[in-house]
């Protein structure tokens, strides 16, 4: 087990060896007093800052870096001196705390070093309390993390998106709807859905070809995106079927949203090899009831969609009202 000892600068055994290590080590090491006046500045710091040890020692950090905000450094130096604990700066939050550069020709010009710093209390031979700041270069690690994160986000997007319409794919929109229904059970908010289908889509494919059909599907996706609120979610449910989930929306609001969707699709013009393909859609609307699941809610929306088809298409139909038990309906007592 270790013995309790106090670190000193650098009046310990083998000062020459210790000084050589401090000079050669591949991290920045500086020692400052409470006013941020530099007492020690190793070679790494000279290389990264452009200030030689002779130039830096005796200067305050705010004199060396006049354009750099150093309030956080002052606060943590004070903390370490008062409490005696260690303090840290995380490169992922503070980035380039001090303006230190490294040459990275393969990445372009010199770049700012992303620094993770550890501050520890030390004392010199006269017993003065100082703070040793060690700085490690996290630039490459952070860059790798960022690239990994971006790749992960791209993959996540691909896995969630319908590649043709750029709307959500079926598993994702159904999973979001499931989450929304569960949230409603807790909060009592309303969720409504619009299930719609492009009218006579098979005819488009048969007359103009499948590429024209793809163009129609893309145009419908764009029309949905134009009229949706930011909180709404739209997905491609099947071949030419689409589903829009309206958060915190009761039946009247859902009916308005459905009318906007139908109109936006009516206004959509798809030009294909000199022909104009008219696009229309039929929409079924349903609003979640207590105890609904994705399946029960969509079954009612589907029935409303068929009602819209039966009514001649290019229109909106709302689900049948909930059956009310005679007692609840207030029927007169016999």
């Amino acid at each position, binding site marked *: *087990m*270790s013995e*309790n*000892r106090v670190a000193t600068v650098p009046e310990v055994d083998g000062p020459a060896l210790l000084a050589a290590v401090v000079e050669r080590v591949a991290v920045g090491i500086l020692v400052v007093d409470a006013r941020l006046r530099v007492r020690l500045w190793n070679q790494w710091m000279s290389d990264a800052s452009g200030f030689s040890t002779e130039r830096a020692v005796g200067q305050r950090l705010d004199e060396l870096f006049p354009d750099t905000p150093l309030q*956080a450094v002052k*606060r*943590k130096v*004070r*903390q370490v001196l*008062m*409490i*005696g*604990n*260690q*303090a*840290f700066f*995380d490169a992922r*939050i*503070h980035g380039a705390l001090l303006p230190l550069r490294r040459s990275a020709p393969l990445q372009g010009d010199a770049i700012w070093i992303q620094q*993770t710093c*550890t501050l520890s209390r030390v004392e010199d031979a006269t017993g003065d309390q100082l703070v040793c700041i060690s700085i490690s270069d996290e630039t490459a690690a952070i860059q790798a993390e960022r690239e990994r994160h971006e790749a992960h986000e791209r993959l996540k997007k691909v896995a969630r998106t319908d590649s043709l319409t750029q709307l959500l794919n079926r598993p994702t929109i159904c999973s979001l709807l499931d989450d929304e229904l569960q949230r409603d059970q807790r909060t009592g908010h309303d969720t409504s859905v619009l299930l719609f289908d492009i009218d006579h889509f098979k005819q488009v494919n048969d007359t103009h070809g499948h590429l024209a059909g793809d163009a129609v599907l893309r145009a419908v996706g764009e029309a949905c995106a134009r009229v949706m609120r930011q909180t709404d979610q739209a997905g491609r449910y099947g071949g030419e079927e689409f589903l829009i989930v309206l958060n915190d929306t009761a039946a009247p609001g859902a009916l308005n949203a459905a009318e906007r969707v139908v109109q936006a699709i009516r206004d959509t013009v798809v030009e294909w090899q000199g022909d104009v393909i008219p696009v229309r859609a039929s929409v079924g609307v349903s609003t979640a009831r207590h105890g609904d699941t994705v399946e029960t809610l969509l079954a009612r929306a589907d029935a409303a969609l068929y009602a819209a088809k039966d009514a001649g298409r290019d229109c909106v139909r709302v689900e049948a009202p909930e059956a009310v038990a005679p007692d609840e309906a207030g029927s007169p007592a016999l």
Partner: protein
Amino acid sequence: MLSAEQSEYAAELLNIAFGQAAAPLAALMGRFVVLSPPQVSSVRRAQAVGWLEERFGSASHVHVVQQAFQPDLSGEAMLVMLAERGAHAWGLFADPDDGPSDAEEKDAALEIGNLLVGACIGRLAEQLGTSVRYTPPRLALFDRPLQELDVKRAPDAELLVIHTRFSVEGTCFESCLFLVLSQESMGWLGQTLDRMLDELFADDDSGAEMGMAL
């Protein structure tokens, strides 16, 4: 695990440690600080979420900071801070009405974690006659539901729980500090506490003898 006598004495040392930690924290922040006496208990890791739900409420969002320490007193500390109802970590360093950015709040959460873990572990180490080094604190959760706390690894590990309220002039900041000590460290802690208890009783005995002589 520690015996009842050892636990009681450890709680007493923690009490002293927290008492000593409040003054420098207040001086550092330039504001009045109250660090309530810590309540010490233990819980299995798998039950930590339920334990926190009982105290913070099941709908709570939390920040979680983790930090390892060594060598005699070695293990890992996990500070769980309530992250809502105005209990912003940033409010401890600046006017909470300023509305901190995520980066500022994250930095403040890390700093508070580092300060409280340092105050608790550092002062406890002093009481035990040793010193500690820390790894940089890691933000394991930031403003996330309590239920996302990872308790899958080592679910049976026994956690020492130190529950305290940390208030800074108007900003109530509730936190729970969980400690997991390594096996070696538990052995060392048990021996050290025994030695300190022996010394304490030896002092009492000599005092009693002196009292009788008088």
